[in-house]
């Protein structure tokens, strides 16, 4: 694996090269591309052209008629998606989106400007689907689909995190994320996915979650955190699994079960549900909130997402509660009901504690945990001691998908302000709808891609640096499992001294539970503010 240059050694040059973009070949430099999908993962998902290959190789082992397949794929998608057709046609190249992409900001590579990323595909569209392109060729910005062009697609469409920041600024709402979605579908038609997406998707399909955790292990892992909670505050929570007749099915990304610091967020969920006496169950079959199918194709998204409703139906729950995750919520908000609904076997979610009817989820019947908790707090149903988070000086990172694919912005802030005393916003223009991507979204959170991830993480990190310098911020809260994993790496790289937490970890810290023993540490086992002394005495 390539080593990543130190932060102060990274060269970022925003000046475009001398050669025009059509004449500048792509270079597969280690650290800037992801490994190709493995045979077994493509096979597990019935995806075309399973084979051993590497994007670094000269020969990608594509089927003989790959070009026809791709062109036919474009034609089909133009017929199926008005978005795609319009976005291919109406860009005026005004450049408003150009400097809005974190990958362009962090690499200076002009093909990371959203407009040029789109042009990579648009040029082929013009060549084969428009009269002007057919007649005028390069003069009309058209070019033929060649193997080099195809490789360039792979490189740059797996160098877009589908964050939609560009679409916010485009006067016509051209969404390069949507174009990337189409391009990835096309790449998948001939077996050119990356393994970091195909692997988790295959795991999810067969085992229920991205990490491939099997049912018994899933239960074990959660029970491990039951012990951990007891060690912190003496309360023994009692989660149930695959339980029929529960009122609520709870689904969260499996990353929360598996890796720090998501696991502390998971402890927060467990504590909250116990404290309010929620009648809920986990599922080992639908044990994944995230959806790496979304990063593959619409069809794969639907195939993986189907489990949520299927399991809710089988268990006979009334409604579904979803954990903290970004892309999971874009899928739930914008695709789930259309793909796998109608969920007419469920009821409109009603909080059993406050009686609030979640009217905004009346069709999908699925509520976001942050909405749920915000409502609990608003109604004074939780006993909270925010001083237990006084050792944290907290800022909040809006995940791209909950911001620009949903609009969940105030709720997490409301919760945070109620569970901690020191909350600071990052500068305007880097938060809420204008939030910057973590740099590793849409399935690009793999180690071999570290250099680009760190480059793409720069704008977010820079905003954190600002509040770190100005307000001593040492903790960034987020509501996304990928964020929790990758921002930790990006902070270590760019702003050492800032940790990452889920919102419900902080809820768990602040939550005063019935029958709890005196708290001296937070969920991580770190001493609470003012408790450092007593810790020392114990030693």
């Amino acid at each position, binding site marked *: 694996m390539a080593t990543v240059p130190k932060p102060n050694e990274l060269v970022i040059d925003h000046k475009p090269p001398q050669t025009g973009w059509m004449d500048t070949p792509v270079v597969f430099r280690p650290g800037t591309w992801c490994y190709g999908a493995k045979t077994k993962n493509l096979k597990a998902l019935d995806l075309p052209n399973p084979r051993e290959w590497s994007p670094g190789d000269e020969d990608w082992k594509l089927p003989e008629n790959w070009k026809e397949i791709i062109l036919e794929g474009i034609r089909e998608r133009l017929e199926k998606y*008005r978005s795609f057709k319009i976005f291919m046609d109406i860009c005026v190249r005004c450049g408003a989106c150009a400097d809005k992409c974190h990958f362009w900001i962090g690499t200076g590579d002009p093909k990371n400007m959203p407009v040029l990323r789109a042009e990579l595909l648009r040029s082929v569209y013009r060549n084969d689907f428009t009269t002007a392109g057919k007649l005028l060729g390069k003069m009309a910005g058209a070019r033929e689909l060649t193997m080099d062009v195809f490789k360039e697609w792979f490189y740059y469409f797996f160098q877009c995190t589908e964050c939609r920041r560009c679409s916010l600024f485009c006067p016509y709402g051209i969404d390069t994320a949507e174009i990337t979605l189409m391009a990835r579908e096309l790449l998948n038609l001939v077996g050119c996915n990356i393994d970091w997406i195909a692997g988790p998707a295959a795991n999810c399909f067969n085992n229920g979650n991205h990490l491939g955790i099997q049912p018994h292990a899933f239960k074990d892992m959660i029970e491990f955190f039951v012990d951990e909670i007891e060690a912190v505050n003496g309360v023994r929570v009692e989660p149930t699994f695959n339980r029929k007749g529960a009122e609520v099915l709870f689904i969260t990304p499996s990353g929360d079960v598996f890796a720090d610091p998501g696991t502390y967020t998971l402890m927060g969920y467990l504590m909250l549900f116990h404290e309010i006496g929620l009648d809920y169950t986990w599922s080992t079959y639908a044990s994944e909130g995230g959806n790496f199918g979304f990063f593959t194709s619409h069809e794969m998204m639907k195939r993986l997402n189907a489990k949520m409703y299927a399991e809710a139906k089988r268990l006979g729950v009334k409604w579904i509660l979803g954990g903290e995750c970004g892309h999971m919520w874009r899928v739930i908000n914008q695709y789930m009901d259309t793909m796998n609904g109608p969920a007419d076997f469920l009821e409109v979610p009603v909080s059993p504690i406050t009686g609030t009817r979640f009217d905004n989820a009346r069709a999908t019947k699925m509520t976001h945990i942050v909405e749920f908790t915000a409502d609990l707090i608003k109604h004074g149903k939780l006993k909270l001691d925010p001083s237990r988070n006084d050792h944290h000086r907290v800022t909040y990172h809006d995940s791209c998908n909950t911001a620009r694919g949903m609009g969940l912005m105030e709720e997490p802030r409301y919760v945070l302000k109620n569970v901690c005393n020191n909350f600071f916003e990052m500068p305007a223009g880097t938060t809420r709808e204008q939030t910057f991507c973590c740099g590793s979204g849409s399935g690009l959170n793999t180690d071999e891609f570290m250099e680009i991830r760190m480059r793409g993480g720069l704008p977010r990190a820079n905003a954190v640096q600002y509040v770190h310098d100005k307000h001593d911020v040492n903790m960034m809260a987020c509501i996304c499992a990928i964020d929790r994993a990758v921002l930790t790496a990006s902070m270590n790289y760019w702003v050492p001294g800032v940790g990452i937490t889920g919102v419900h970890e902080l809820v768990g810290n602040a939550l005063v539970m019935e029958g709890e023993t005196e708290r001296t540490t937070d969920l991580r086992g770190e001493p609470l503010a003012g408790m450092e002394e007593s810790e020392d005495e114990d030693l």
Partner: protein
Amino acid sequence: MGIKFSLLVVAALIAVVFLGVKVVGMYYVFGVIIPYLAILTFVGGFVYRIMNWARSPVPFVIPTTAGQQYSFPWIKQNKLDNPSTTAGVIGRMALEVLLFRSLFRNSKVELRDGPKLTYQWEKWLWLAGLLFHWSFLIIFIRHLRFFTEPVPGFVHLADTLDGILQVGLPGIYLTDGLILATVTYLFIRRVVIPQMKYISLPADYFPLFLILALATSGILMRYFIRVDLLKVKELAMGLASFHPTVPEGIGVMFFIHFFLVCTLFAYFPFSKLMHLGGVFLSPTRNMPNDSRMVRHVNPWDYPVKVHTYEEYEDHFREKMIEAGLPVEKE
């Protein structure tokens, strides 16, 4: 390359009409036939493009949510940037189309040593873009005075408002200056900003030059090389009433201007200028964020292969039983 090519095309267009009218005397061709063809192409092309877009369905609800969602009564929804109702969408679209709301968000990133990033105020593109489009629209409306009799009130109104400066400077229209200035600005930023230059195609320069030539010829005609406006009106009315005539003695400047208009009209449906129609159909802007509240149907939805619970349990039953997990079949 794109610049030279586009300039050349515009120059060639002017040469064609100049020679055609002045040397060959094809008044009828440039005064009647080409205008009718251009309008036909425009209307036909425009309708075709819109129908062609509209033919493709919108399978999913994918608005770019640019503000707080609708959730609780005690959290203020941003109804215009993240609408959940049709009224909200109309408001959002009105802001987009009339005021270029999204472009107004624009900022400029600057990279300093460190690396350190700053975001600068950058509304010039928004301002120039907006002034350019509004000027274009007002000029277009003003021109309707040639094609109507009696001239409708809104055309008079546009004329009066646009001529507001005429109190001190007789005969001056605001929009004449604005359109020249803004098109020049749009061109200059395209060549001066390195990224803009890098992404620009001939198709980006051409409309700018065409509109610049169009506006310049109009202004020349109005202020410097006068033509007989009564005769122009006669020609225009003839076209509008489908009794075309070409009165004698209209200066060649008019024919240059008129031919450039025709070129613009004919070019319009096949170019990026179709953003005029596209913006109204853009799914990230014209859909309400209500997909958790209202079911949206994908017309081409099809069943997909899923991994059912039964298959899952069959695979893991032993382990599940051993772990004390409930199973359907013992």
